[in-house]
């Protein structure tokens, strides 16, 4: 019984105020029915509360006192007010500072993260665990779609990789004498020799298959020259133009050496009905201006628009 009284005793004050929960109130009520000491305690504290409410004398002052007080306070404020210009300036600056600080607090309070995200503290580990599992599940997909660069070996033809200010350089006119394939399936095996393009003065060979979105793009380079081709190839009354592009964050520069199809520079263009260098350039510029996203679409040229020279195995896409 004594231990029960010790538990109940701290609650009695709140019991009198009526600020206990229903369960606690029921506990105290049932206890004081069976405990005389606690019952007397409750009765005494109720009487004490009654005495305080009805017999305590609250201090009050006369109207004269308040009038005098207001006058004195006003004088004190005026005396403490800044009079010199530099004091006034400092006071104004302080006031402005406080106002800005108050506004900043209000905005910070309004936009605080907890207004939008409600996470109970004890559930935080569960959120972290769920987020970690989600990341583990999503990681393979993310890595597949956004492969990391491995030096200069891999080419990224992401949509942002082709810059609007790309330059088209057609270095060799009538360079192509063969029809070639510029795409083939990843799974296909190269069965014959690498095709070449005789431009008259230089021989360009297709080398280095580059993987882009499941297709293989073929780059050109010369065997005995450091000049990197930007060639136009006639393919069945169409012109396959090999153009250089400055990709995002890349500088506009001519290609050098064998450093073709790096991860920042190139795309393949297929321009229809272009026969001359000047025409190709104009056509490219026109399309680039008129058709938004033209450069991007070039990568999606259907394979059947190209004829393929024997020597490269043709894979229907």
């Amino acid at each position, binding site marked *: 019984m004594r231990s029960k009284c010790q538990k109940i005793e*701290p609650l*009695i*004050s*709140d019991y009198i105020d009526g*600020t206990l929960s229903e369960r606690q109130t029921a506990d105290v009520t049932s206890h004081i029915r069976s405990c005389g000491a606690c019952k007397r305690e409750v009765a*005494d*504290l109720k*009487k*004490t*509360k*009654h*005495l*305080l*409410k009805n*017999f*305590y*004398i*609250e*201090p*009050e*002052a006369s109207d004269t006192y*308040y009038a005098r*007080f*207001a006058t*004195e*306070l*006003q004088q*004190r*404020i005026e005396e*403490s007010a800044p009079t010199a210009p530099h004091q006034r300036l400092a006071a104004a600056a302080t*006031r402005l500072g*406080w*106002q800005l*600080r*108050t506004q900043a*607090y*209000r905005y910070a*309070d309004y936009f605080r993260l907890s207004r939008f995200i409600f996470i109970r503290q004890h559930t935080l580990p569960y959120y972290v665990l769920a987020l970690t599992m989600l990341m583990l599940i999503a990681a393979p997909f993310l890595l597949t779609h956004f492969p990391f660069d491995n030096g200069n070996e891999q080419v990224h033809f992401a949509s942002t990789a082709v810059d609007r200010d790309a330059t088209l350089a057609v270095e060799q006119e009538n360079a192509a004498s063969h029809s070639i394939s510029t795409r083939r399936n990843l799974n296909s095996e190269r069965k014959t020799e690498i095709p070449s393009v005789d431009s008259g003065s230089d021989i360009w060979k297709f080398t280095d298959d580059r993987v882009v979105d499941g297709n293989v793009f073929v780059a050109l380079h010369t065997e005995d020259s450091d000049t990197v081709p930007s060639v136009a190839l006639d393919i069945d009354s169409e012109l396959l133009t090999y153009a250089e592009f400055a990709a995002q964050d890349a500088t506009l520069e001519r290609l050098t050496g064998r450093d073709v199809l790096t991860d920042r520079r190139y795309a393949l263009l297929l321009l229809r009905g272009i026969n001359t260098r000047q025409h190709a350039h104009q056509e490219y510029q026109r399309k680039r201006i008129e058709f938004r996203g033209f450069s991007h679409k070039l990568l999606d040229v259907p394979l059947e628009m190209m004829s393929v020279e024997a020597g490269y195995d043709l894979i229907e896409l």
Partner: protein
Amino acid sequence: MDRTEALLIADLCEGDETALAPLIERYKRMVYRLAVQITKNRADADDVMQETFIKVYRSIHTFRKDATFETWLYRIAVNEALNFVKRRDRRRECTLETAAESEYDSTVRHNVQIANDPHAQAEKSELRQHVTAAVNSLPVKHRTVVILHEFEGLTHAEIASILNCSEGTVRSRLHYARKKLRTLLKPYMDARTV
């Protein structure tokens, strides 16, 4: 022209000193009551009142709307009064000054004697005097909680906010104070008055 409290506060924030007078008019009695009850001395209460309203005037820019102006003012007044009592007690320890605190008790006694009919109200006047003296005899921390809860009608949470302590501390102090008052007022708890 009757300006609302929000307008008065906004004007005061912008440096309009005339907005202070209506605010003083509204809250002067509340602040005076608190100051006298906590300091137990009318002269000290006068100082506390002045300091309170000057602080309101100077710090109104720090008032944020997450609390009511009344609660904010309570906080300033109570803290000013408690600081004043702390400084006074420290000074008294040094100078052995003892006269100041009893001034309010004697004033209360005087007012009670004048205001009441000695024949019909003698018992009640004596009871009032004892109840007031009992409250004033409490330690300042407990007295403050009793004043804010019993006489000002504030909740535990509001008192905790004003005193910058936990609600549990407020409940504990209130319970202790009531038990102390019960002991002091036990002789007066008879059927005729309660």
